[in-house]
């Protein structure tokens, strides 16, 4: 069923009796050509592109709970491609281009809103680093602008310029950055994948892999055994748990990242703004809530909740940057499980087991990468060769020393 303004109008007149389920609720078949483990944004996007672009069939997405119940439904909805290193930037720029065509591709309005992302800088060294990054972005075909203090004032006059502990010296602006309605991304991909015949199977937890002579044969699930020629795993914070069932140890730790939303307010904040001298970034949703976040709690965790010190740290940053929000109220806080990798960059690669592929280590960069991640993972599953934008995202890069360390923080996940 195609969505359109006319359709909405007609259904409105006939009491909405005509709307069909956005996706089917099929029982698992005995075997598939492709089984995607994880019904989050990345898994569903992978299924969509596998079916639509790579014309594959007999595809299933297995989700242990309800689709979109992971990080795609619990993040701060930001999209951007303002990365520095060649290992990352092409992938995220590819992702941003896919975002720009998403509504038409999916026939679903995920409210991709390119109102810009502004990274503030507070020192000369920080500006030098941003110039290096901005130039790298442009050289990779992305857009970037380096603003001075005056230009930042024009964009965001409500920032603290007069009484700031760390004065704002300027910022790196990517106008094509912005936000997307996060849940709708999962739903849009699910609906589209379903329309191409992909089986989306909810409440189906993978409990083991069947591996014979170093090759994958299928997966054990809470709904029985499902055979598969190829299995792709995209389970974010649960990567280590799931891959351990295949006997693999990963260069990944699971950490909690908290996110916050305020009560609804009339529009006050134009795009996305990030503080360069503290842990705080913010945007305002179409419903009016200030959506913000900061740093991860910093210790290994599988509990989808954080603790107060980080909340205070984030909001201290918020008040330091924009003291006008003091009388706005924090409405909700929640935590997501980040698959923090050892260099802060993701993996999209085959594993030592034939037919078993891994997509993870996204840290908190996962949401913005959803379309590209799905696309290039589908490419890898379909062709067994890495997509041109993801050639360096290998699992063995720490052995060779080819880290992709944007922050230069070294082998410590909670610093990325």
């Amino acid at each position, binding site marked *: 069923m195609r969505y359109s303004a006319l359709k909405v109008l007609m259904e409105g007149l006939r009491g909405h009796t005509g709307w069909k389920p956005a996706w089917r609720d099929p029982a698992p078949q005995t075997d598939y050509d492709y089984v995607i483990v994880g019904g989050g944004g990345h898994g569903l996007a992978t299924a969509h592109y596998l079916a639509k672009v790579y014309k594959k069939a007999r595809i299933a997405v297995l989700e242990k709970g309800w689709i979109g119940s992971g990080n795609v439904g619990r993040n701060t909805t930001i999209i951007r491609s303002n990365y520095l290193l060649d290992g990352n930037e092409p992938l995220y720029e590819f992702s941003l281009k896919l975002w720009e065509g998403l509504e038409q591709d999916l026939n679903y309005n995920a409210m991709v809103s390119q109102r810009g992302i502004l990274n503030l800088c507070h020192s000369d060294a920080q500006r030098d680093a941003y110039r290096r990054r901005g130039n790298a972005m442009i050289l990779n075909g992305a857009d970037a602008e380096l603003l001075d203090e005056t230009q930042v004032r024009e964009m965001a006059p409500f920032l603290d310029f007069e009484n700031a502990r760390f004065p704002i010296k300027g910022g790196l602006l990517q106008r094509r950055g912005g936000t997307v309605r996060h849940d709708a991304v999962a739903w849009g991909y699910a609906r589209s994948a379903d329309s191409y015949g992909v089986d989306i199977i909810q409440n189906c937890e993978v409990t083991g892999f069947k591996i014979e002579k170093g090759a994958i044969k299928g997966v054990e699930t809470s709904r029985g055994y499902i055979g598969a020629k190829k299995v792709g795993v995209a389970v974010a914070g649960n990567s*280590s748990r799931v891959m351990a069932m295949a006997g693999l*140890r990963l*260069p990944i*730790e*699971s950490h909690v990242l908290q996110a916050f939303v305020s009560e609804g307010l009339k529009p006050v904040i134009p795009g996305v703004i990030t503080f360069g001298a503290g842990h705080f970034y913010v945007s305002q949703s179409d419903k009016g809530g200030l959506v913000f976040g900061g740093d991860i709690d910093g210790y*290994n965790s599988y*509990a989808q909740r954080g*603790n107060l*010190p980080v909340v205070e740290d984030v909001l201290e940053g918020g008040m330091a940057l924009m003291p006008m929000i003091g009388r706005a109220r924090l409405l909700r806080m929640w935590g997501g499980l980040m698959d923090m990798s*050892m260099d802060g960059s993701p993996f999209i690669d085959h594993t030592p087991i034939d037919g078993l592929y891994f997509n993870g280590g996204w840290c908190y960069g996962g949401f913005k990468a959803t379309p590209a991640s799905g696309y290039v993972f589908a490419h890898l599953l379909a062709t067994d060769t890495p997509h041109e934008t993801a050639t360096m995202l290998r699992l063995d890069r720490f052995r060779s020393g080819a880290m992709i360390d944007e922050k230069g923080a070294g082998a410590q996940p909670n610093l990325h």
Partner: protein
Amino acid sequence: MIINHPLLGPRDAQEFVYHGDASLIDRPDANAETALDDFHDYLYLRDNPAGSHKELWFHEQGLRSWLVVTRDTTTQEISLVELASDYAKRRGWDR
């Protein structure tokens, strides 16, 4: 969170800095044939368990002791806290 320091008693986790899996104490022999692989596994690979986890915390805003904390990563329950130096010595690192 509250970390029950073996010397100081309960202290707010805010005073500590987290470092990661306590296996980082078991630094491989740099002169072994397999040193490169050993150090790779040591520094980069993690069990990352959902459950009991031995991990390193540094009491930066306190007495600057490194601790080995045994914590359940699903419930955050802390079952054991010991001085890292004791833990390390017990594992034979007393040179």
